[in-house]
């Protein structure tokens, strides 16, 4: 990277990218990595929500976008704020992945020395897995067909997953068993026989209901593993709990979209209800309220919602960021006390109004000077371009300095 500036590079290092996996033993993990990211901020999903068209984004990202235009950023279909639903399981999966990502990445990084050997080993494992699976399923031709496609070690679990509903008695069981003796027994419509056959069906002596509870454990285990380490709860309980939001959230209602026809007084009342600062113009107030509604509603989608006070803090940060676009002279010097800040705010406005003509004259002069210079020296064109942009700012800066 051609960058020499320290600030940017520091930031660059903590920015992760799906391509990090391309040099690991499992380059396919980049697919998982990228699918756990929000397509708007390109970061890992924070409090993911599902749109009515089935796409998932960070709650705050999609809310900010939807309040502008009601469409899905991916498929451009119409989507409304009221249709957003939180996805708590995905939230915990993403959290697990982003928390364990660096360790995972380390452990699957290819050692440069054993590079080729490791790959060979991995291939061998893959092949032997394939063979095993084929052996297991060779008794039933149909199911082996399903499993030989795209075989990978992870799919071995799935072997037990293919269940089908018996068309006659409606009980779920492995396909192979339905195709075997079960249907015949069902057709005889002898309830006792049926019971026997369903019991035979279950593997290793466990009942069907047990099978289901095991399966849900498997999927949830991963997402809650870091929680179980902290809690001494049994796995069963914690996996369910990892998807429970604090009770407080349930009692809180989502805020409705801002009604722009509201009178300024009522808007102010509404904002006071949440302790939102009410200074500035009507447009600024509306923007602030909109952003707060977005923050507030997104907070309700989060697994660990924060206090309203923290939301107000974020609101303030957001506003200072937005205000950064404005000319710099509105921000007072770092070491100024409160009085000078107030005085400066009032005075700079007056000063600007008084000296408007003077300013524009100065700018004209400067422009003509710049043109003369440009004609003289045509060497460093890039610098001149930038100076041109900053010109206005510099002049007003000087004027406020005089003030102080």
């Amino acid at each position, binding site marked *: *990277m*051609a*960058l*020499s*500036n320290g*600030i*940017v590079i520091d*930031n*660059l290092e903590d*920015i992760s*990218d799906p*391509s990090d996996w391309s040099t690991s033993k499992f380059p396919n993990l980049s697919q998982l990595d990228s699918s756990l990211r929000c*397509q*708007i*901020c*390109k*970061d890992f999903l924070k409090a993911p929500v599902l749109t009515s068209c089935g796409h998932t984004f960070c709650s705050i*990202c999609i809310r*900010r*976008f939807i309040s*502008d*235009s009601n*469409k899905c*950023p*991916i498929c*451009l279909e119409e989507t409304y704020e009221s249709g957003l639903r939180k996805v708590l399981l995905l939230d915990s999966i993403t959290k697990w992945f982003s928390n364990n990502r660096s360790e995972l990445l380390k452990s699957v990084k290819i050692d440069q020395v054993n590079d080729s050997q490791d790959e060979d080993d991995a291939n061998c494992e893959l092949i032997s897995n394939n063979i095993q699976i084929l052996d297991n399923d060779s008794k039933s031709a149909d199911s082996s067909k399903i499993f030989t496609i795209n075989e990978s070690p992870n799919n071995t679990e799935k072997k037990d997953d293919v269940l089908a509903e018996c068309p006659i008695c409606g009980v779920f069981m492995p396909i192979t068993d339905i195709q075997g003796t079960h249907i015949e027994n069902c057709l005889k419509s002898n309830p006792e026989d049926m019971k026997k056959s369903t019991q035979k069906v279950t593997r290793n002596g466990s009942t069907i209901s047990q099978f289901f509870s095991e399966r849900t454990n498997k999927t949830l285990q991963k997402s809650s593993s870091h929680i179980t380490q902290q809690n001494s709860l049994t796995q069963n309980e914690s996996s369910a709990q990892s998807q429970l939001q604090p009770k407080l959230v349930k009692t809180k209602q989502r805020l409705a979209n801002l009604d722009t026809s509201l009178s300024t007084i009522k808007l102010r009342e509404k904002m006071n209800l949440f302790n939102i600062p009410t200074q500035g113009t009507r447009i600024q107030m509306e923007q602030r309220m909109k952003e707060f509604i977005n923050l507030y509603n997104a907070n309700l989608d989060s697994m660990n919602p924060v206090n309203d006070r923290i939301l107000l803090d974020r609101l303030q*940060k957001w506003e200072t*960021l*937005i205000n*950064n*676009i404005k000319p710099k002279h509105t921000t007072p010097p770092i070491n100024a006390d409160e009085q000078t800040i107030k005085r400066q705010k009032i005075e700079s406005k007056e000063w600007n109004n008084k000296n408007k003509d003077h300013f524009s004259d100065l700018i004209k002069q400067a422009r003509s000077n710049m043109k003369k210079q*440009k004609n003289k020296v*045509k060497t460093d*064109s*890039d610098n*001149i*371009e*930038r100076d041109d942009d900053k010109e206005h700012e510099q002049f007003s800066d000087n004027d406020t300095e005089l003030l102080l």
Partner: protein
Amino acid sequence: MTSQRRLLKELHDSSNLPESILYLHPIDESNLYIWNCIIHPENSSNSYYKNGYFQLKIKIPQNYPIDPPIISFLIDKNKIDKNKNFKICTNIPHCNIDFKTGEICLDILKKNIWSPAWTLKSAIQAILILLDNQEPDSPLNVDMANLFRLNDKKAIESIINFYINNT
């Protein structure tokens, strides 16, 4: 903060560019909101513009990616990157590109069509596609649009080649 993080991600990703995009980088390390880009559409063999190098100026609004980036062709000879070992063309005769300002008429760069799921890279790829798919029905360059309506291929090709080779 979101726009900055997102731009840093795109900068991180900009080492991985398609062949037609030679360069995509912020103009200055301290300012992520103005980017520079050089394109060279040589790979699309039937393109009129395949021999040209073009520079794009990208201005990024503060609430990117909610708002689209503002992209235009750089046509000011004084501002062009001269340190490259090829010459950058500053005249782009194209139906949907303003000849005098370099403004691009492309729907996905308009606020009501833009989607935040797109990146700077995909926006530039869209511009590369626009180069080969001129739309004479919404022209910024009426002369070129007329040639396209008449489907005068020889005239179009010679005009474009004239400007590409004479810069």
